[in-house]
């Protein structure tokens, strides 16, 4: 498998999510990572070069997103829905954006321009802050995306991986409901699940049968 791994860590929010992914997700997939872009190394030009050099791959990204773009370390747009050359970078790829809102317009446009399958969020992605006494509950908020990437890397189809992520969300909801947390995290985990975009949800998110090809 080939994974292009991107953590744009340029403020407290993105550092929290990026550091968490590096400590948890990355160790599960590192043998298949062919390019890593993080912190100041996560520049749009570098990332685009990496996408060109690895034509069949899974891109997994964390950082700030908006409805129609995602940013790099210097707040330059990496991919924008108005870019007609997305296929140059994303053709034959599966894209996972752990970012707010980008599932709204950017994800469907990526698919329209030959990305095989897209996973992301069409709303804020909510997570506990590290100052909260129940910060350990962040595991439940991060586990569905971690499950998704690991499943895709193990050769699951987009549909199978999405289903596993949804199951992880169901477990997470149960865990938060039964935690000592008093209210708003109960809503956050449900909102994250509702905002999760994947090919099983709508064909605009790509091909349910898409997989990352085995390397030969």
């Amino acid at each position, binding site marked *: 498998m080939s994974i292009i791994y991107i953590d744009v860590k340029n403020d*407290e*929010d993105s550092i*929290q999510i990026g550091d968490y992914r590096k400590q948890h997700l990355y160790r599960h997939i590192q043998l298949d990572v062919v390019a890593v872009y993080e912190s100041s190394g996560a520049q749009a030009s570098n990332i685009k070069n990496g996408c060109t050099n690895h034509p069949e791959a899974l891109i997994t990204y964390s950082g*700030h997103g908006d409805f129609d773009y995602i940013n790099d370390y210097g707040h330059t747009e990496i991919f924008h829905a108005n870019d007609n050359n997305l296929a140059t970078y994303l053709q034959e790829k599966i894209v996972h954006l752990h970012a*707010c809102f980008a599932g709204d317009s950017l994800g469907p446009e990526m698919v329209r321009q030959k990305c095989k399958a897209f996973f992301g969020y069409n709303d*804020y992605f*909510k*997570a*506990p*802050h590290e*100052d*909260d*006494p*129940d910060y350990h509950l962040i595991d439940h908020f991060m586990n569905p995306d971690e499950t998704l990437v690991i499943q895709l890397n193990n050769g699951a189809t987009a549909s199978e991986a999405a289903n596993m992520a949804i199951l992880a969300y169901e477990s997470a909801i149960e865990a938060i*409901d*039964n935690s*000592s*947390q*008093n*209210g*708003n*995290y*109960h*809503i*956050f985990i*449900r909102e994250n699940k509702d905002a999760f975009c994947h090919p099983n949800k709508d064909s605009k998110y790509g091909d349910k049968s898409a997989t990352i090809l085995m390397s030969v």
Partner: protein
Amino acid sequence: MPLQKKNPERNKIPKDQWDLVVGLDNNGNEITLKDYDSIQKEGVMRIQLDSNRETNRKMIALHRLENVKNYGIFRLPGVGKVDREKAIQLIKENSKHAEYLIQLELKTIDLMVQRLNSTE
């Protein structure tokens, strides 16, 4: 806290939620989840929680936030750390995040009432 052991959904209601406002009655009096539960049990009247909620949504959200314990701290893009005090401030200032924070409280009310009324 009212207990009903045979309703697992009801048992998922955090104890502090029982004393938080979930709506207003027809006279404008605040109704907590505990009040609502008692009224439902007595069968005297069924309160339509959403009948006057829209016009009082900001006040209801603020009242809940001013009394809630253990409010989960989180991040909002462009704001950063949001704790209970910050949420109150953002709503009072009518910031661009105020509507989301009000909706969050209303969704919490809906989830708790749904658990209360669950027959599972």
